[in-house]
């Protein structure tokens, strides 16, 4: 028999003015199992809470109903109060007789009747409440960071500096991602390599960071605190223990292939380091183009290698390890504009129509042209350049509807760099709007205009080759005239789109994607680095287009979230979660598909039923993942699955109490 205590709050006059509180107290006393009812001026105040604690002792109460303001206001307060008593903090029900009663019903009689009903409902429900306890889940204090760009590196460094071991998985042969490809970074124009390579070196040498290049995540199982991750490492064909990085092999290798790192503008060998400052600064063999591996000929590198580090028969390695948290930092890629913009030349466009990243490689001192801006077609220095912004961005008809945020700034940077390196050159920038939302951003844009960049507000309608020039037809909407510019080089600032494996990785980690396949954060404003999948965090452009300052800030934020998770040995799980009654469950699995958190799985159990040992599958809820929404309980026909705190019986009691 439960012994219920009911406490009605006046909340000053907020409730008392339009609800006859003493009458409600009177009515409460008549309710079944209610052994004590009282009212307080301010229940949430300290004396108010003390009066409840005293009443619990004095009247040996075992569950409490508080009729006051909305549970959204003080449910937590009163639970904390119950922690200091012998009553389980979940044996508490709150009747909302302020926001949903006294404040909205002027007529005292109707208000009071409703308040009594609400108290009766709460008392009926609490009669069926059971003590609930949070369970604990062990937390493996090892982090996994996917993606070795600036986001992944910053996150890995922060976590490692906080004392936790990190594994950093990078698909390419070297860390650095897109940032290390850039020449300068806006708005301060400090050289990208100068600020990125030290970070790469720091990550490469950090005692608690294990870098795995040419590696990809293949499978993720488990849940927050206990992820079982399978990592597949592609064969490097070089033994990094022996290799000293002398580069002799690379210099002598006969095979030349277009370099992906140089965005197709330069060449690389079959055994290569993507760029000079690569970390790890050791080469890998590109098996697809290596003559020895494919045709059994050559093998020059093996002969020359002073330490015998070449391993032609290297195999791919798979390892499965446990991690407590995962940070996704897989970055972005540029949209494939050729299929979308036939008017700029499409697949048969002139080689002198290049993307922003290709321009970065041209202007970069360690790039294929040692920093000289040359036309890819004939290597001559372009005397006039046209920069076209929003190619694929803000264009729902042909490309993406969103703005890629960073192109206005790096567009201005490209103009500035060009005018800096070709003093007698002319630079035109076609734009719709110039968006410079950061510190020092607009000043940088003004400087670029002062350098002589001609900003023409209008879209380019057509680019074609005639007389050795690239004729750009467009308009200048401010002057109200069509414009024709003949340029030697055209730079298209193309849209950012998610990396190729974003979709695959998202589904593996249970992270939803938005309509453009960016990974979705838990809440756009309040939880930007978390996801709906516990223990999985986002950093950088994988969550949406952004520039380097935002990326680094998000990386440190994600790292902090991981550190919060690791600051406790165990994770306290949500108390009001679903649970399945093994006796009733026939393992039909209807509940499994409902759960957005993959918290419900079918497990095999062996138990004695009607004196016979039986093995069958039943549903099982993982307390670490279940968030307590209850959608699975409705899918369960026999009612085997029930939600603690909002169980079928509690709700049915509440419904009955309302109707009596």
């Amino acid at each position, binding site marked *: 028999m439960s012994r219920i205590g009911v406490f009605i709050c006046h909340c000053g006059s907020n409730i008392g003015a339009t609800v006859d509180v003493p009458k409600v107290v009177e009515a409460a006393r008549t309710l079944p199992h209610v052994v004590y009812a009282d009212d307080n001026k301010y229940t949430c105040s300290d004396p108010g809470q003390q009066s409840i604690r005293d009443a619990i002792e004095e009247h040996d109460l075992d569950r409490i109903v508080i009729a006051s303001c909305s549970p959204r206001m003080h449910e937590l307060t009163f639970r904390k109060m119950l922690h200091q008593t012998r009553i389980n903090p979940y044996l508490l029900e709150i009747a909302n007789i302020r926001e949903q009663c006294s404040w909205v019903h002027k007529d005292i009689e109707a208000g009071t009747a409703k308040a009594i009903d609400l108290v009766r409902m709460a008392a009926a429900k609490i009669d069926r409440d059971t003590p609930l306890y949070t369970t604990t889940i062990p937390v493996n204090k090892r982090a996994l960071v996917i993606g070795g760009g600036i986001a992944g590196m910053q996150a890995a460094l922060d976590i490692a500096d906080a004392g936790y071991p990190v594994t950093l998985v990078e698909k390419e042969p070297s860390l650095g991602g897109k940032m290390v490809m850039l020449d300068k970074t806006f708005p301060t124009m400090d050289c990208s390599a100068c600020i990125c390579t030290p970070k790469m070196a720091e990550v490469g040498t950090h005692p608690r960071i294990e870098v795995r290049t040419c590696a990809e995540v293949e499978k993720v199982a488990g849940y927050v605190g206990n992820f079982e991750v399978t990592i597949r490492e592609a064969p490097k064909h070089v033994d990094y223990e022996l290799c000293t990085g002398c580069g002799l092999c690379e210099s002598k290798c006969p095979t030349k292939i277009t370099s992906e790192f140089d965005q197709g503008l330069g060449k690389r060998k079959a055994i290569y380091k993507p760029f000079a400052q690569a970390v790890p600064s050791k080469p890998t063999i590109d098996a697809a183009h290596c003559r020895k591996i494919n045709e059994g000929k050559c093998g020059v590198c093996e002969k020359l290698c002073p330490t015998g580090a070449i391993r032609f028969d290297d195999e791919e390695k798979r390892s499965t390890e446990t991690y407590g948290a995962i940070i996704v930092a897989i970055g972005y890629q540029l949209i494939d504009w050729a299929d979308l913009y036939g008017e700029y030349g499409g697949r048969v466009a002139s080689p002198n129509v290049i993307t922003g990243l290709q321009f970065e490689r041209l202007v970069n001192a360690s790039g294929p042209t040692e920093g000289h801006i040359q036309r890819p077609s004939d290597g001559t220095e372009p005397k006039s350049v046209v920069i076209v912004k929003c190619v694929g961005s803000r264009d729902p008809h042909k490309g993406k509807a969103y703005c890629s945020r960073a192109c206005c700034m790096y567009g201005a940077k490209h103009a500035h760099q060009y005018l800096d390196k070709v003093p007698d050159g002319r630079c035109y920038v076609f734009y719709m709007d110039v968006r410079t939302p950061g510190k020092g951003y607009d000043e940088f844009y003004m400087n670029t205009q002062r350098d002589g960049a001609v900003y023409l507000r209008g879209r380019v309608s057509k680019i074609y080759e005639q007389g050795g020039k690239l004729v750009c037809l467009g308009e200048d909407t401010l002057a109200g005239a069509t414009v024709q510019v003949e340029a030697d080089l055209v730079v298209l600032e193309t849209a950012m789109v998610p990396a190729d494996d974003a979709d695959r990785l998202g589904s593996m980690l249970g992270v939803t994607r938005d309509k453009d396949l960016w990974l979705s954060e838990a809440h756009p404003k309040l939880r930007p680095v978390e996801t709906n999948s516990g223990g999985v965090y986002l950093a950088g452009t994988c969550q949406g287009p952004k520039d380097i300052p935002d990326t680094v800030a998000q990386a440190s934020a994600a790292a902090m979230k991981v550190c919060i998770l690791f600051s406790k040995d165990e994770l306290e799980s949500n108390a009001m979660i679903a649970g399945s009654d093994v006796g009733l469950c*026939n393992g039909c699995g209807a509940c499994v598909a409902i759960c957005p958190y993959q918290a419900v799985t079918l497990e095999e159990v062996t138990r004695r039923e009607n004196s016979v040992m039986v093995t069958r599958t039943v549903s099982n809820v993982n307390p670490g993942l279940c968030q307590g929404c209850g959608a699975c309980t409705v899918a369960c026909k026999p009612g085997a699955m029930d939600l603690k705190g909002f169980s079928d019986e509690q709700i049915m009691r509440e419904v009955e109490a309302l109707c009596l």
Partner: protein
Amino acid sequence: MSLSTAEALTDALREEARRLLAEGTVAVVVGWEAGRFPNQTTPAFISDPEQAQRLVYGDYCVNTLAKYALGEKAAGKVAVCVRGCDSRGINRMIADNQLLRDEVYLLGLPCSGMKDPATGSLLMKCRTCTEHDAVTYDVLLGPATAAGHDGASADSSAGDSEHVSDEQRFTAVLGIEEMAPEKRRALFDAAFNKCIRCYACRKSCPCCTCRECFVDQLRAGWQGKQNNLAENRFYNITRVFHIGDRCIECGECERACPMGLPLMALNRKMVKDLKSLFNADDAGMTEENSAALGRYDLGDLEEFM
């Protein structure tokens, strides 16, 4: 079907049953055996090869056998005679993780619709059946009817067209939908009043495979035990909601109901809605669980905004 076809199929069935039982590939064969009168059959569970003689196949094999497999599988592999409805029932139970495909050995039999023992005309459930031939089987004991429809003797009202159109399939539902709300209320109140809560509908339904039905449990407010209109309505509507998105339209519930409640009208109302609202596919056609209420689509119709 003609007498000669019936006899041929019966012999083929007996021969196959005897072989399977003799070889020990299956522990029991579930089929039909003759009842007291010529136009009657009753489910038969044969485990002795000699007894295979008792099996028959003809125009009056009205029971859908799928659910019996659950009861028999403890003894070992079960051979079940399957037509369109039975095979979809087997798929249903496989999709609901209650049965494994290799726990049953399916004997495919052609079906051109069974006859009502009382009237001799085609059963209502066969009149509106959309899938005469077995959708899955291990062996086919006769030519599939979809190809050759020797329905010379079949009741003409079934119409020769093998595929029943949606109008025919949902005639009962459409008829009731057109009635005024009060008349619909009166119709179903009268029906629910007659319900004696014998749960034959649940017993014969391949979707109803819970260990303990919500109706049998003792839970506050969950389900009154009284046999009155309100609690009968509660049971019937809840059962339809539980199986609505998995119903294979075999019509057994309505056929088994001693009080003649329009159960298929209720089930098919939900099947029709789920088909038009979320283009749910017909249940039990494959072993996958394609229950419409177990999934969602971002582009679903919106009517609650």
